[in-house]
């Protein structure tokens, strides 16, 4: 890999993870660097350890090895690494949309109430949900909830946004719209994203880097996605990249007995 010499925002060395209640080593000595402005998509078969990896980065799990975020060892969750889950229930149902964000800002130490509201509204505009700011989460669609969660992460000014299949539970059309909206935001904001998916099209459309994990939790392949955004199936090179990734994933499945 010939990345220019920037300092990684996220530096992972020999990350090993085994759950207390099981013999299986989920992640065997993973190394990974993520640089500012990266959009890293992680692809892998179901159960290979993608969520485990991102949860370790988020600070939700104990692990062996090192994970450094902005040069500091990750020991617990923090606002420098905000997680967007697949589960639509990641907003607090007892708070309105805007208050879900202002509450997070307050928790992270922003003292000025007016400034909190202004910031929350600014980011709600970015995800086109300003008109819904006084709604309660249960009044929103799944896609809208995910956009609020993304807005919350951005408003917190997290240096890395961690997304664990945030669009996987959405219908295809909404999912496509969310993808282009996310790309659009990414172009305008300086943000670093680690994005888990098991959808090849999604990885190609979003990522500038794509990492494929093998069934046993190793990094199988790590490549740069140089296709020009926005990527469509008609983009030159799309077919070849899709096939390459699909072959890698099929191998993993074929290895299954």
């Amino acid at each position, binding site marked *: 890999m010939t990345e220019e010499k920037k300092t990684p925002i996220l530096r992972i060395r020999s990350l090993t993870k085994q759950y207390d209640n099981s013999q299986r080593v989920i992640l065997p000595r993973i190394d990974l660097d993520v640089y500012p402005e990266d959009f890293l998509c992680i692809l892998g078969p179901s159960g290979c350890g993608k969520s485990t990896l991102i949860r370790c980065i988020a600070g939700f799990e104990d692990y062996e090895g090192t994970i450094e975020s902005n040069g500091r060892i990750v020991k617990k969750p923090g606002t420098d690494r905000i997680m967007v889950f697949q589960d639509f229930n990641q907003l607090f149902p007892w708070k309105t949309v805007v208050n879900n964000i202002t509450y997070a800002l307050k928790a992270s130490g922003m003292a000025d109430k007016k400034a909190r509201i202004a910031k929350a509204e600014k980011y709600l505009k970015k995800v086109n949900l300003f008109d819904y700011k006084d709604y309660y989460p*249960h009044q929103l669609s799944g896609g809208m909830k995910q956009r609020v969660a993304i807005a919350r992460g951005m408003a917190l000014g997290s240096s890395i946004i961690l997304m664990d299949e945030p669009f996987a539970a959405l219908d295809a059309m909404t999912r496509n719209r969310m993808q282009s909206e996310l790309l659009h935001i990414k172009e305008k904001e300086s943000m670093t994203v680690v994005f888990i998916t098991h959808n090849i099209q999604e990885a190609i459309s979003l990522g500038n880097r794509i990492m494929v994990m093998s069934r046993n939790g190793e990094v199988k392949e790590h490549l740069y996605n140089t296709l020009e955004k926005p990527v469509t199936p008609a983009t030159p090179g799309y077919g070849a990249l899709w096939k390459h990734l699909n072959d890698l994933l099929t191998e993993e499945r074929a290895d299954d007995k």
Partner: protein
Amino acid sequence: MKKNIRLIAQILFVIAFLILWQILYSLQIWPPLLFPSPGMIAEAFVKAFTSKGLGPMILHSLRLLLIGLLLGVSVALLLSALSAINEVFAAIYNMIVSMFDLIPGIALIPVAILWLGIGDGAIIFMVFHSVVWPMSRSIINGFNSVPNIYLEVGQNIGLNRIRLILGVFIPAALPHIFSGLKVGWARAWRGLISAEMVFGGGTALGIGYYITDRRTNLDVAGIFATIIAIILIGLVVEYGIFMVIEKNTFSKWGMTR
């Protein structure tokens, strides 16, 4: 539409019940002194408030109830919160709750009298006992069933332990807490009246005392009138207070199970 039919059916039933009562009265099977007519009960009801001072008696009982309820809820919240933080404490507190919840309030009256004397203190003690254990049970249940994702989001946005309890555990467990409150209130209300009746005149205040007083005066209509007052108060609390709170909190948030 459905709701209307139910309401009409209920009203018709009450009317039929009153008519039947009136017929039984007219047949003069029992002496009117022991079996008063609905009209006599209504009259006694009015008289209880206008000339016999039931109003202040009720207020006195409700005041003690409120004090005991607030004490019980606060202590239950505090101790349940502690058990959410500390596992050793949780183990001990769980045991205490299961044991003490088994003691009928009335069985504690002798102790209450010996410790606190006949009077308000003993009544408040009874109410407290009726509330604190079912409340604790519900709160602990509620805390245990808070979805993990809320806790992870809470940690992610930087909430510490105490703010996690106040800002996530309590609102997320509100439906449980509320059902505990309903159980607690119903028990407390009954416990309070029984206690006042047992004290019988020692304090000369409260609904329970009033009923006992009617009995000594052989005023059966007055007894029924008081019972109706007790039912009405229960209805006001159920529909006027609990339902309103429910509508404006977790029902509004889409959290009703």
